[in-house]
């Protein structure tokens, strides 16, 4: 192949690739856009009876000033963990990660503990927890 022909071919391929990328980028940006959303989980007074309460993917732990909210989402690959009242641990049914009552990782493939979630105490005694979707 002559040098000139080679250059011509190379330039046209580059132009095609650049054109494809110019189309693909906005298309992919559109297809993968997600608006940041949060949902609220409200624990009414009736939902706060035990020292571990669960509602819609959130664990409310402790009472009074020491109350904390933990996400039930396993930090390995996102399954929801179960609370085992016998061992007082959180156990993931997917690949066996185990967390203690404070959410600290005890064993399994996960690399960190459960995420703590921000909570607000309301004047009527209920507690609102914000969860990112």
């Amino acid at each position, binding site marked *: 192949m002559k040098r000139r022909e080679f250059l011509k071919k190379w330039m046209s391929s580059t132009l095609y690739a650049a054109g494809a990328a110019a189309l693909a980028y906005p298309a*992919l940006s559109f*297809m*993968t856009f*997600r608006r940041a*959303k949060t*949902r609220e989980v409200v624990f009414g007074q009736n939902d706060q009876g035990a020292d571990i309460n669960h509602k819609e993917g959130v664990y409310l732990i402790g009472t009074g000033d020491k109350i904390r909210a933990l996400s039930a989402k396993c930090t*390995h*690959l*996102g*399954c*929801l963990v*179960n609370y085992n009242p016998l061992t007082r641990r959180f156990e993931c*049914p*997917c*690949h*066996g990660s185990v967390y203690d009552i404070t959410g600290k990782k005890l064993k*399994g*493939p996960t690399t960190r503990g459960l995420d703590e979630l921000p909570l607000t105490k309301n004047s009527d005694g209920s507690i609102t927890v914000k969860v990112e*979707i």
Partner: protein
Amino acid sequence: MNERSSVVNRIAKGAGIAVTFSTAMPRLGLASLFICLLSGIILSFYYRPFGNVFQNVEEITSLVPYGWFFRQIHYITGQAFVFLMLFHTVDHFVRRRYRMYPAGEWTGLVTALIACFLTLFTGFILKGDKEGLFAGTILLNMLDTIPMAGKWLSRIFVGSGDAFFFLPYLHHCLFLPVITAYLIRGHVSAWLPGKGFAAVAFVAAGTYAILVDPFMDIPPEAQAQIVTGPWFFLGIQTLLKSWNPFYVGILLPCVFVVLVLIIPAVSRFSGRESRFKAKSGIAEKGLYWAILAASGAYLILIVKALVNGP
């Protein structure tokens, strides 16, 4: 196209018990696929990928007239199609028939098989129960681990919040079947099932649907000690217990697929008179046995997980 059909015809015209088995498999598989598509179309009249998907599926199973029948038929024919296609591929592979395929056609067929598995996986998600929900979440988070492109890729496959099931639904009902049909369009012309195969497939699937109850779906809010994925994912689920999700869920399967894809090209070198002939002959043998060993090891993992849990 001529070269393509001649490859298939040469195979289809074989004689003897083993070849009869080889030629019956793809025909039964295609018959299953047609029944699966038909039952899928019927199910789509009630199935909704929004809101309480679990309740929607339960209604299909227990409230809608003959819903249980179409759900079971759809399930078993989908499984049968992928199973038979897998056997068909293994059968070709073990007999080293990949040597007869042009690299492009081989790549298309392997990609079609991957698309079939993805269709099964998205179907598993669409059950909307705890297993489906977790399978979708795991897929999303596993794709997320891919450096740079992870966020984009995961968002292409799985939605979030209320729209969680919509993207798997779109892939299951539209993109993946269209991709599969496009990729196998030339290949299947020699395997089209006659009335006999269609009747056998329908009677077998119908009998299954009538005799076997649907699996128990776990409500999303129920607690379950162990949650398992679809059968072909069980090996990966076991490995995920101790290995990094990116290596196990993305890198290893990709390396395996690349090995399967390049083997016809390597074999072509070993078949030619060239100074690379001897070396590529050894490379082909090595690849062949590596692929078989990896598949065998994975099969053992699946069986182990089916018996003892992942």
